[in-house]
């Protein structure tokens, strides 16, 4: 096990910062669950 410097400043593609990408993933997930909820109610 060796300590190595990591490029923390490396940006994600498309987004300007990692937190923006994380927010995108979580919002997308919330939308998917909302769609599932609508799907469940529509067909029940």
């Amino acid at each position: 096990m060796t300590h190595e410097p990591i490029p923390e400043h490396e940006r994600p593609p498309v987004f300007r910062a990692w937190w923006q990408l994380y927010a995108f993933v979580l919002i997308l997930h919330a939308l998917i669950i909302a769609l599932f909820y609508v799907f469940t109610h529509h067909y029940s």
Partner: protein
Amino acid sequence: MHLIDWLVMAGTLLFIVAYGTWKTRSVSSVKSYLLGDKDLPWWTIGLSIMATQASAITFLSTPGQAFDDGMRFAQFYFGMPVAMVILCVFFLPVYYRLNVYTAYEYLEGRFDLKTRSLTAFLFLLSRGLAAGITIYAPAIILSTILGWSLFWTNLVIGLLVIFYTVVGGTKAVSVTQKQQMIIILTGMFVAAVMLVLKLPSDVSFGDAVAVAGKMGKLNVVDFEFDLSNRYTFWSGMLGGVFLFLSYFGTDQSQVQRYLSGKSLAESRLGLLFNGIIKVPMQFLVLFVGILVFVFFQFVRPPVHFNNANLEKVEQSAYAGTLAALDSQHEDVFSQKQESVRELIGAMRSEDEAGIEVAQQQLAGFMQQEASIRQEVKALIHFTDPNLETEDNDYVFITFVIHYLPIGLVGLLLAVIFSAAMSSTSSELNALATTTVIDFYRRSIRTRETDRHYLHASKGFTVMWGALALLFAMFASLFDNLIEAVNIVGSLFYGTILGIFLVAFFFRKVRADAVFLAALVAEFLVICIYLMGFLDAFRFPFLWMSLQFYIAYLWLNLIGCTLVVVFAVYLQFLMGGGGRGAVAASRG
């Protein structure tokens, strides 16, 4: 099985194995063997992570689960994207900064050797058991349905996996998983399309989905908070987050996948890719099960999906009773089919009263059908109490074998074999890596050459492969295979995750406190799980005779919370000293 199906299946599998072996023929150092030269891009990491998690059980059991229980199992995966984000923020930077081979190496720096060894041991225990089930699960089902020898099916899956995993190590695992995942996704998509095409000409895709909904099968989301209900939004979001944090953050079979990434950014993207894709993918697999359910509303299904069981009853004194039940089943099916068509007609004409009448009729027929199927299961049990009467795992494969055209049967069998091989290879690779790095190189042979550890890694891969094969040969079928694997994981994952959470977020807690806390928590988690069974026998002690069944997903949360609470409390009692103090400040 037709010759063309054999050629498609064998050709697909041999191509993947040959490609993986050829691409990784130059692996010559232990770092390259265990970390794959750290040159993988994010999409390979993402597919590799998905392929590791998606075993053959996923594609055999999940459609059967949807057929029987609807789509609520999708909620099991709801916590995954949240867990992926937490891992990207907190876990990955630490692993990359310390340049570790295994997740457990970090624990020695943060705590001490015994905590590292305990955690690695818990991993070897849970994953070692799961590796056997991963081989056995598809083998038992394929051998039963296709009449193949269980011994040879186990052996072929096991030997192919051991071969390319031993030759190419981590890189071979990732390279083959990319091909396997492409085959798996293509196969499942083709199965869904074929199911739609095989519906009667007067029944549209929209009708099929609406029928499934009216028959209570499209129950994807359930917000009711019920600790004894296995799959709700809450068990998925709370229990699921802890399960996936533990599985992806501390299970070496997954950690090794993203540690072989080209950079921290590529590994993060691979995990997030998995977080986005996994829930819709699981929805697709469950939806295939729903389509199978609708298909069998128009084509009469067998009264029991495990044909081998039926043959045994037919050769017993219960053959007459079985024939009578089969005849009843046929009558109920004909009437049910009429009701389904009435339901479709009522839905098309938006006749609410007609829909309600048809739904009530259908509910009655479904109850009668379930009762007949239950009686058949009882007959199977009377014929031979050792036979497994649960047949959900046979639903999808029955459709594949009997209703898909020549060529596609071979492709779908290749899907099941690919899934079995992809998850088993990751498991063997991770088991060998943990054995070498956390035990062999750390505590047994500490000063050997790189070549020695390379050979040791290959040797341990063979050893774990042989053990998994042995376990597969002697395992017996569980109630539901996918749940069996998840339950085994849930018994240990909470404790392992608790240790890591204390390491990351409770800097003042030292080694002795977390070690003791982990032992006590693991003991309590096993007790809580076993108390579910004690209750079934009406255990005579007062508090144990109460209803005490907790769905297994919650064990992750309970185990993890117990470790954190006990560790903090014990550290408070012990005061500020103790081992790990220096490491903690450095961590």
